[in-house]
């Protein structure tokens, strides 16, 4: 059953963005766009989150924070990089302390372009992320099956 697609919980992190994209992310939660229609909830807890929405080009101070947040999220999970800075570093890319894009630190699944990204684009990016999330879930259950079978085979081998 694919419950995951119907109940994606989001973790939003500002990795040295100018706050433009963050305002647009939060705009998605307002009555105008109301993403809770799709079961989307903005949670502040990486352990409850399925999708990491991340804005900004990541500076040297929050580099370990981003990695930590990513590692705390339970599988399956996807990362959506929002805005030009999250994709490439944007106008800040020449700065001495900017990593230059989220994918320099953690793997990114969906890039949402724009400066700032529009709420419609962000929702579209999240919907794209949902199908990737579903793929990852299928792969995860498939792997669990293979592991289980391998374990059974090993046990059977020991028995004889």
């Amino acid at each position, binding site marked *: 059953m694919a419950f995951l697609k119907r109940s994606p919980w989001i973790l939003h992190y500002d990795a040295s963005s100018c706050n433009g994209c963050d305002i647009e992310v939060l705009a998605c939660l307002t009555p105008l766009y*109301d993403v809770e229609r*799709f079961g989307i909830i903005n949670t502040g807890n990486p*352990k409850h989150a399925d999708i990491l929405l991340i804005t900004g080009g990541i500076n040297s101070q929050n580099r370990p924070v981003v990695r930590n947040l990513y590692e705390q999220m*339970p599988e399956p999970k996807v990362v959506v990089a929002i805005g030009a800075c999250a994709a490439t570093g944007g106008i800040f890319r020449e700065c001495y302390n900017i990593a230059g894009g989220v994918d320099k630190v953690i793997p990114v699944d969906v890039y949402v372009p724009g400066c700032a990204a529009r709420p419609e684009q962000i929702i579209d990016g999240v919907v794209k992320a949902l199908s990737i999330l579903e793929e990852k879930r299928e792969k995860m259950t498939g792997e669990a099956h293979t592991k289980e079978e391998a374990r059974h085979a090993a046990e059977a081998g020991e028995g004889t």
Partner: protein
Amino acid sequence: MNGLIGAVLFLILAPIAGGLIAGIDRKITARMQGRVGPPLLQPFYDVGKLFEKENVVVTTAQNFYVLAYLVFIALSGAIFFAGGDLLLIIFAFTLAHVFLVLGAYAVHSPYSHIGAERELIQVMAYEPMIILAAVGLYMVTNSFYVADIAAATVPAILYLPGVFLGFAVILTIKLRKSPFDISTSHHAHQEIVKGITTEFSGSTLGQVEIAHWYENIFLLGFVYLFFSWNPVIGVAAVAVTYVAEIFVDNVTARVRWQAALKSGWLAAAVLGLVNLAILSYMTIGGA
């Protein structure tokens, strides 16, 4: 025999009814905020998803405590719908929350610990009033057994209006609704991270959710006891009470834990005790 049927029906139907009520709750909340809101079955999708996710465990004991929480909540509800002793039900109910607090304390996370402390404060805040409610129902019906209270022909609400209002106050605490949703909240996802449930993920969080559904049905059953002389009025009163709770949830801001504790005890001392004092004076005077 009837009791056994009641208990089994509760164990099977309460998660379904509880999930639906949670769905209606979210829909009404969304409408009050001028939004469309999630589908009616959204709580079931959420819990289904949680069981699909990886379960990140820091200390294995935490999962055991959460399972104990679920079992004891289900047990207290099952005794209730079996028509059992109200005091035993309240003790099992309290024990369940002690397990939840222990589960949150089992992990070395400051957010989880703050949530656990606040949950203990909530238990302290609602416990006096819930016991006074049981005492009040005993004074009116002469029995602590739910089966006898439900079968009584006396309109308990007319004798216990204060106790009922006090119970409504602590119901807000128990349903985890504003202004008393201090340990963890349905709405505030970023204050003290997620409070008591911060360190629970995947299927463990799913169990917390299911326990909450069981709990809500049990509490609504308790509300029904005040009106049980007339089933139609009883069901209507339960619905009105719940919608009023949703309304209060949406129009109030969260208070600090001191205020939550004071409100719980003030409700018990003023609404509960005064009502019981008048009632005992009346019955002694009458006899």
